[in-house]
């Protein structure tokens, strides 16, 4: 393992983030605030409580997840796609590193950025609602795992993409709908039975439910399932990455 190479990639990616720090941080803060105004204030005034929690507080975990997932995917995807796009990828291929170092470096940096943004959103939301976190360690663990696994997914998308359109397609067409339909802003139990059934095929439901459990101690699905879902998803991504590594798919001519 070439730790210096991992650190080089990680620092290089993070410096890109710091260079545009204000932009990187302002937009999630603003959009979170908007969500609170729209969902929390407008809708929340009509819905008193969900599962014993005020609606404003109830949407916080989903809101954090939504941002963290999209951020992880887009920054890992962009991070690895950009060198391919402008041609600096040759350096990664010619360096004395294996694919593992590349993955750890890029995914680590993307997950870190998403984590920073996630925490920032959490802090922002505390200005709007009273929030108590029942299981803080579990909360952090869920957050970190989500950042990592979705950064892995983003990495795969970045390797796969041959254009910026493709790079944005999956997050837009697949992830955002799954997150919105994954109980970010409502409890699955509020849905009619048929849609409840459908929802259980949505992997994001398990993540958000588990994450919400760490805040309020209640959940749509048992926490064990949530952990299993996120572990399975991570394993799947790692498997795909291992395969890419073995075959050199979309990496080498």
């Amino acid at each position: 393992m070439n730790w210096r190479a991992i650190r080089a990639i990680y620092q290089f990616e993070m410096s890109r983030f710091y260079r545009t720090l204000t932009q990187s941080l302002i937009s999630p803060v603003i959009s979170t605030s908007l969500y609170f105004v729209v969902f929390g204030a407008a809708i929340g005034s009509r819905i008193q409580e969900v599962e014993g929690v005020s609606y404003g507080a109830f949407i916080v975990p989903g809101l954090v997840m939504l941002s963290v997932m999209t951020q992880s995917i887009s920054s890992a995807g962009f991070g690895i796609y950009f060198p391919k796009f402008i041609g600096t990828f040759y350096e990664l291929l010619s360096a004395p590193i294996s694919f593992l170092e590349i993955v750890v470096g890029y995914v680590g940096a993307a997950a870190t950025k998403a984590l920073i943004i996630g925490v920032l959103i959490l802090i922002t939301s505390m200005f709007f609602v009273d929030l108590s976190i029942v299981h803080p360690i579990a909360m952090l663990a869920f957050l970190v795992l989500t950042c990592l696994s979705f950064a892995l997914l983003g990495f795969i998308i970045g390797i796969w993409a041959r254009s910026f359109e493709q790079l944005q397609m999956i997050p837009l067409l697949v992830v955002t709908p799954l997150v919105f339909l994954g109980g970010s802003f409502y409890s699955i139990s509020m849905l009619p039975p048929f849609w409840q059934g459908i929802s259980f095929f949505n992997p994001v439901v398990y993540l958000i439910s588990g994450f919400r459990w760490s805040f309020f101690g209640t959940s749509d699905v048992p926490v064990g399932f949530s952990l299993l879902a996120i572990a399975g998803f991570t394993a799947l991504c790692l498997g795909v990455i291992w395969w890419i590594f073995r075959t050199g798919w979309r990496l080498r001519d």
Partner: protein
Amino acid sequence: MATILSVRDLRKTYASGFEALKGVSLDIEQGEILALLGPNGAGKTTLISTICGITGMSSGSVTVGGHDILSDFRVAREMIGLVPQEITLEPFERVWNTVRFSRGLFGKKRDDSYLEEILRKLSLWDKKDSAIKELSGGMQRRVLMAKALSHEPRVLFLDEPTAGVDVELRKDMWEVVNGLKADGVTIILTTHYIEEAEAISDRVAVISGGEILLVEDKADLMRRMGQKQLAVQLTEPIDAIPDALSDYQLEQSGDGHVLIYTYDTRADRTGITRLLNDISAAGLVLQDVQTRESSLEEIFVGLVSGEAA
């Protein structure tokens, strides 16, 4: 001298089915400058990319300093630096950052004073905090060079280092290359230009159509390349070359209308005056005279057909 890079029967077929390398074998000596000369599409970049691990090989083997580039890739690649043909840099990145990144990527310990030395040598030190996009093309090419040198490679590949670089800068580049050679770095550079190969290389390898046609000492090759031909067109065809002209080793063509004389432009005397005098003394009447230089392209063709014969 010891062989530092050994390429054995290297083949590369691209996914498109095109075979860009057709069994290349090449040994490069420690500390030499080898010019890889060849026309567009010859396979120069493919050869370099394969050695550096950017492109996968179809078959064959390559060792660097005795380390196989596949089974022992970490050690092999640490020894290699590459300046690619195309300028590929992140436009918004700062010079210093990209160079430091390269060093780290190759697993070398941070050493700012070494990087400073490189940037100074390449006249880039005052640009170290500039964004890449603020630099001229020639400067960007030197940044690529600085990146390649950042991890102290023992073997340096320069894929057309002087493409799009003005004469002044070209000289600077050659100076840097010579300095590296003095430090014991082995250098392989590709070029289309005979003069460039002539100016800095020790040996020249000619590649065309994915095959190495020859590897030769520069001095020998230059002698061969320095040849020029004089075509003398006669008013009347002749059956045989008169004995009086036998010294000139003339060739006949064009149904006996044309006599071809090959001479070395570098020789003190080309013998043209004497030849023309002797021709008229032999009673032949000249209609026209042409000279032509063998171009690189023709030499390649000559080499290929020479191999076939």
